[in-house]
């Protein structure tokens, strides 16, 4: 058993609170589109209160990756997320998804967003999830310089691993994610370019996630979710997520923040060969 308290699997409920930046970086189709932007606003306005209430029912703590500009726009929401004991992680300032950002620019963006979150909540950011899954060849170095202990960007494994720079291990844990645990693979429908014409039912999402949970738990692995309050925050989906969390807790899941899991992995590196 590698996880604490004989748990079978580590599960990280993690929310990308992109709000309007989901649409401003989505493409031309949503430019100046008031009601597309209002779909983004649904996240902080309607989704977050429901999600926080549901997490409280189970006493479960989650990670919220929040772009700096959204924290500035919805300061009370960010304070409330932190007050209820949840972690806040880095997710760009404007949800920047540009592959050609320089080291200096990214360094400045990280400093800027970290300060916004610190000033609002007193939380020092220790983890990074790149907007749109974009990172750079210098990213690991930057994470270390900023005192981060984890990254959640890789998609190549179902378990945590320690990053290496120039062949040497560094104190930085990867907590991988994948589209299979990203709600936008199922519930992001839009008729604005670039169009996405699919909408799965909460029942189908539950089935896919439960199946994967059951099999990963048998292997003693982990799940890192990528959930967007503007989509998963609809009441039918929050109710489904609530059922899933209840199921996972009842079946040997350790459910906690990315930060807690990363710290546990760092403290138990000798177990990594068994992950």
């Amino acid at each position, binding site marked *: 058993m590698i996880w604490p308290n004989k748990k079978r699997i580590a599960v990280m409920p993690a929310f990308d609170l992109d709000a309007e930046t989901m649409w401003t970086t989505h493409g031309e189709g949503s*430019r*100046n*589109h*008031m*009601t*597309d932007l*209002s*779909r983004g*606003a*649904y996240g*902080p*306005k*309607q989704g*977050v*209160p*429901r999600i*926080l*209430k549901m997490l409280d029912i189970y006493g479960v703590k989650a990670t919220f990756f929040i772009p700096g500009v959204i924290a500035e726009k*919805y300061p*009370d*929401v*960010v*304070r*409330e*997320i932190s007050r*209820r004991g949840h972690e806040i992680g880095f997710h760009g300032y404007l949800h920047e998804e540009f592959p050609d950002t320089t080291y200096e620019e990214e360094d400045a963006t990280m400093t800027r967003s970290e300060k916004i979150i610190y000033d609002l909540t007193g939380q020092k950011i220790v983890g990074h999830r790149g907007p749109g899954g974009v990172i750079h060849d210098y990213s690991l170095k930057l994470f270390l310089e900023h005192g981060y202990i984890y990254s959640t960007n890789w998609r190549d494994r179902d378990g945590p691993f320690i990053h290496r720079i120039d062949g040497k291990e560094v104190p930085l844990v990867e907590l991988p994610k994948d589209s299979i645990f990203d709600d936008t693979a199922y519930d992001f*429908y*839009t*008729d604005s370019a670039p*169009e996405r*014409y*699919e*909408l799965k*039912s*909460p*029942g189908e999402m539950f089935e896919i996630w439960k199946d994967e949970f059951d099999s990963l738990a048998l292997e003693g692995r982990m799940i890192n979710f990528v959930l967007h309050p503007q989509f998963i925050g*609809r*009441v*039918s989906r*929050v*109710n*489904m997520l609530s059922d899933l969390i209840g199921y996972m807790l009842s079946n040997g899941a350790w459910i906690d923040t990315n930060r807690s899991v990363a710290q546990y992995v760092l403290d138990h590196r000798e177990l990594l060969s068994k992950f």
Partner: protein
Amino acid sequence: MSDKIDGRTNGLSITWPGKSRIAVMITFDFDAEFLRISRAAAKGTTIGFSDYSRGQYGPHEGLKRCLDILDVHDIKSTFFVPGIVAGRYGREVENICEHGHEIAAHGYLHESKKDISRKEEAEILKKSEAALTGITGKRPVGHRGPESVIHSFTPELLVERGYLYSSSMKDCDWAYQWEKDGRKLPLVELPCDVTMDDFTYYYFTFSNPAVRSMYTNREVFGNWKAEFDGLAEEGNKIFILKLHPQMIGRASRISALGRFIAYMKSHDAWIATCEEVAGYVLGQHRLDSAKGDVLR
């Protein structure tokens, strides 16, 4: 009344008539062939005969079934009608009125351009109001932007022209009043979402821009029931179905809609027109601001 965005507040405190748990509006966008014509225009393409004829399934076949099922369940509904549809399908729109349903504004040509001026939008409203009033004898009090497209100046424009409500936004599941410079406008927003839009599930075409959705009624009504149940449980929410006679109007779907209406009725839904709900919400807000803020 407060509309706080603070991570805690999940809507405004409101009590629905007769202790109902939720306000339900079954709405129809009666776009006919202009749904696809305007969509293609916005994308710089044109439509072929298939799309044209499919649009006409609304007035030629679907509408009658919609009106019938509403009568069966004794429900009044709101139809959002582009001005040009009122012109081309005058007899059908008269028929909707004769059944006691509300007619509301939905553009003139179903225009969905984002970069128009305030003056241009005022012209569109004026033209569509004239077309609708010519048939109904009553100015429309509600507006829904074609393809949900509205502009930053639209709410004020609607207030100036005597509208009571707008139904285009997607930012929450409760009815709220628009504000301007911190001051409440006498205009209620009735938000809806793509999850409760039949277009999401039933529009299928190969022509550009391609939309290829085709779901079972079990999937569609399963989604709607899950949303209805959750929102009714929360108690202060609204539930808007956004339907198109050319899509929901197919025989099997109308039958499923009838069963869903019966389900909602038997689970304490107040099913009314948008005008009735918006009027009620505005009245409650005024009562509450007289009594001071009450938050749920």
